[in-house]
């Protein structure tokens, strides 16, 4: 650690020296040209960086300070009196605890099942089939649709009187169930609909992973007498670690954004009973109940949740030289 720091300081000093004596251009890529291109690169990345930085990090910072106030109603927040009261309030609030539990259940069930379905479909598509492109295009189609659109389709699929889900279950003598209206069933129903929408995404990522594995490995495993299932389990799937990590991060982020879907199920800020997640609760607290500070605190906790998932992923990608 100290060695790294010393090397860093050394570089800094050396670079400043180069700048000080008039930006003498060194032939190596490491020193002269590098500091030279910094100035000329500014007009390109700095404007988007400022816009994005203010919108993302500036807003998060503002939101954090807002969450430390007691702002509610229409009065201006008092930024002089800051404390973590809203966070304490959240963990004493049964609505928050319920939403937190639903968020985790949705996150885990949705991403794990999506990955499994996506992997199976990707392996099937990877068997050198005909019309591969057509199949792939169809499987990915739901992802191009808005949550608002797919929510309409699934409301009808789950309809108690004439919904297809109940008709299919009726063939084997089950139901009919009131999927959206029943608090114990609704979350599962939502997860199923979201898997329908996003498993195509997992498929595309896994397919790219499978294509990156050299053909010789498939053949070698077969020469060794491995059955197809064993080959995939022992040889192929362990190599899809990178694909699994990046797909699951993106899927979790999609799950955190499920607000649009849940809102559209009822057309209101109150999602079906039993399906309230932090994303819907935050918006409701902010724009219906006007509890701005409380909503800001929920937003910050959602951000922390995303950070826990994303930070190790970015680090992994960085180490692997993917960025």
């Amino acid at each position, binding site marked *: 650690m100290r060695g790294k720091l010393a090397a860093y300081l050394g570089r800094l000093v050396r670079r400043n020296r180069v700048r000080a004596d008039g930006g003498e251009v060194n032939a190596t890529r490491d020193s002269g040209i590098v500091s030279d291109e*910094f100035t000329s690169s500014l007009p390109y990345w700095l404007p988007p960086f400022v816009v994005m930085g203010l919108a993302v990090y500036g807003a998060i910072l503002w939101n954090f300070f807002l969450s430390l106030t007691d702002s509610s109603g229409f009065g201006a927040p008092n930024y002089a009196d800051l404390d973590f009261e809203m966070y304490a309030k959240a963990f004493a609030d049964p609505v928050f605890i319920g939403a937190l539990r639903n968020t985790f259940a949705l996150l885990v069930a949705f991403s794990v099942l999506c990955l499994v379905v996506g992997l199976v479909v990707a392996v099937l598509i990877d068997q050198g*089939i005909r019309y591969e492109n057509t199949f792939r295009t169809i499987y990915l189609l739901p992802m191009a649709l808005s949550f608002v659109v797919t929510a309409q389709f699934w409301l009808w699929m789950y309809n108690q009187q004439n919904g297809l889900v109940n008709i299919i279950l009726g063939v084997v003598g089950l139901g009919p169930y009131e999927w959206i209206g029943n608090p114990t069933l609704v979350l599962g129903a939502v997860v199923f609909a979201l898997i329908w929408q996003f498993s195509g995404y997992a498929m595309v990522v896994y397919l790219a992973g499978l294509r990156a594995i050299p053909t010789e490995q498939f053949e070698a495993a077969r020469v060794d007498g491995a059955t197809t299932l064993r080959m995939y389990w022992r040889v192929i799937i362990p190599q899809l670690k990178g694909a699994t990590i990046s797909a699951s991060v993106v899927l979790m982020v999609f799950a955190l954004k499920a607000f649009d879907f849940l809102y559209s199920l009822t057309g209101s800020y109150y999602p079906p009973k039993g399906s309230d997640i932090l994303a819907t609760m935050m918006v409701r607290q902010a724009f219906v109940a006007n509890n701005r500070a409380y909503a800001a605190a929920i937003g910050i906790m959602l951000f922390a949740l995303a950070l826990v998932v994303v930070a190790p992923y970015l680090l992994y990608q960085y180490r692997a030289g993917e960025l």
Partner: protein
Amino acid sequence: MTSTNSNSLSGRSWRSTALYAVLVLLVVFYLLPLWTGLVTSIKADVLATAPFLPPAPAGFTSVHWTRAINALTGGLVNSLILAIPATILSALLGSMAAYGLTTLNWRHQVPILMLFIAGIFIPYQAVLIPLSKFWASIVPVNDLVGYVGLAGWVGDLIGLILSHVAYGIPICTLLFRTYYKDFNEEMIEAARIDGATTHTIYRRIILPLSVPMFAVTLIYQFTQVWNDLLFALVLVGPGAGAPVTVPLSQLGASLSEVGFGIRMAGAFVAALPTIIVYVLFGDQFAEGVST
């Protein structure tokens, strides 16, 4: 990695038949919600027949479609006004940022790049209140457009466009970054030795070569902006400026079962632009999501 057990021809053909059967079943699975929606949208009585059957000739109606089109036309226009400039601007800014952080080399550009990329993953709930306060009080576009004689909702829509641009920059930067990373450095070095400035290199070399990536980014970002509900709801809300997702989320809500005809028709009307884009440019969309 193609042919599986090849010990006997019948074994192989049985396997391949089973494989195609499963693939076709999956097609049914992925298309069924759309199919039931489509047939339901043209039924006079949505409860008359099973949801996957088309209506009997006597039970056919186009009234749901005309009603849905009437209810959503304004929203469709607003969504186009929103999505087209927002998409172009964020793609352009993303390309610029990626050029400055990839093709041009300088020290410590990776931490800056990390900040861009981390921006892809933030939940919008963490910025929602500051964002709405920003457009309400710091830069009140709603009032500002009044000085040039425009209605308030135009201002709201401008705020929404700029918000989508700002939050679209991270993903666009990443898409262009992965593309520029594989560019031939010697080519750019050669141009530099010939005396080309960074600006000339960007205009004359990088931009023309970026056309395929612009296609990917524009298609992906257009779909994202078109499909968004949360920002539209909070920054514009229902009313004259509402993008199509806002009225669609309310469509038929008060009509319970009988409202499903208009709901399904409305879902197709609102999704049509994205479906057209997807059918025409499915490969670019796939590339956009898998990066």
